């Protein structure tokens, strides 16, 4: 599995340690990933909205809509992108104290390695 590293901005290209032998797992940049924010009873609604506005540059209306979705539905997808991009966002969200995870955007099961069509044998 490839792994992006969200280090500081002045340490780029220092992360290729170890050779990734198992590159058959599909983590190509064109597979979309989601950044999910989860509800918790501690974070202030105003703070969550502030983070969405200041970090993502979202409008007040969009930030509030996403914040309310987190609050009411328990979670909200607040950004999409490559795996590396959403992982970087997740670390930033953890820095703010929000509970963030990343997930593959293709909601269905399967995907990844085995691409066999039709069972054999």
């Amino acid at each position, binding site marked *: *599995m490839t*792994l992006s*590293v*969200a*280090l*500081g901005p002045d*340490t780029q290209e*220092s*992360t290729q*340690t170890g050779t990734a032998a198992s590159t058959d797992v599909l983590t190509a940049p064109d597979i979309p990933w989601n950044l*999910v924010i989860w509800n*918790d*009873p*501690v*974070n*202030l609604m*105003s*703070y969550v*909205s*502030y983070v969405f*506005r*200041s970090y993502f540059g979202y409008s007040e209306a969009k930030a509030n809509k996403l914040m309310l979705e987190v609050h009411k539905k328990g979670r909200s997808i607040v950004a999409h992108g490559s795996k590396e991009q959403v*992982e970087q966002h*997740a*670390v930033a969200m*953890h*820095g*703010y*104290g929000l*509970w*963030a*995870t*990343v*997930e593959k955007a293709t909601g269905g099961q399967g995907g990844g390695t085995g691409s066999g069509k039709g069972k054999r044998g």
Partner: protein
Amino acid sequence: MAKAFKYGLKGITGFLEPAERDLLRSLFDDVISMLEPEERPNQDPLAALVGLDSEAREPSDRALRRLLPNVMKDDDEASLEFRRYTERSLRESKIGALKAAALGLDKDELVLTPADARHWSTALNDVRLVLAERLDIRDDADAEHVHRMQDWSQAEDVESYLALVYNFTTWLQESLVQAMLASLEA
């Protein structure tokens, strides 16, 4: 009594009594000591320098797990691998914000630059996340129960004292965030 943060001509300003500053300083210090990465004797210094920690693992303490959560919900292995590359720098950036906020506590009149305000807001948030774990706040009903505790003369045990501290930091953070939102409009 502390005064709520507000946004005005001088930027974001606030006021804290000496006892309140002492309280906040000890809260910031507590969270800093939770977050300090443990130094291991056989650690590769170069790896540590670039933020790698091949022995990082999911924290057993619930509060620490909330500060440094897994990046994937249902994949502990991938989360652990990600943690090894990112957790150290996350700890350091949190510690940096907490230290910066603590440094600003040397006088009762607070005048925050935008960077100070960002440090203060994340520092207060991390303190509240830790207190909330200690108070067992699991859902909105728990939070509401804790929120009803407002009278310092009734603080007779550790839990009621913690609840009052939690409510104070909540109030302070809310006023700060409102001031920061006002500064976004300006």
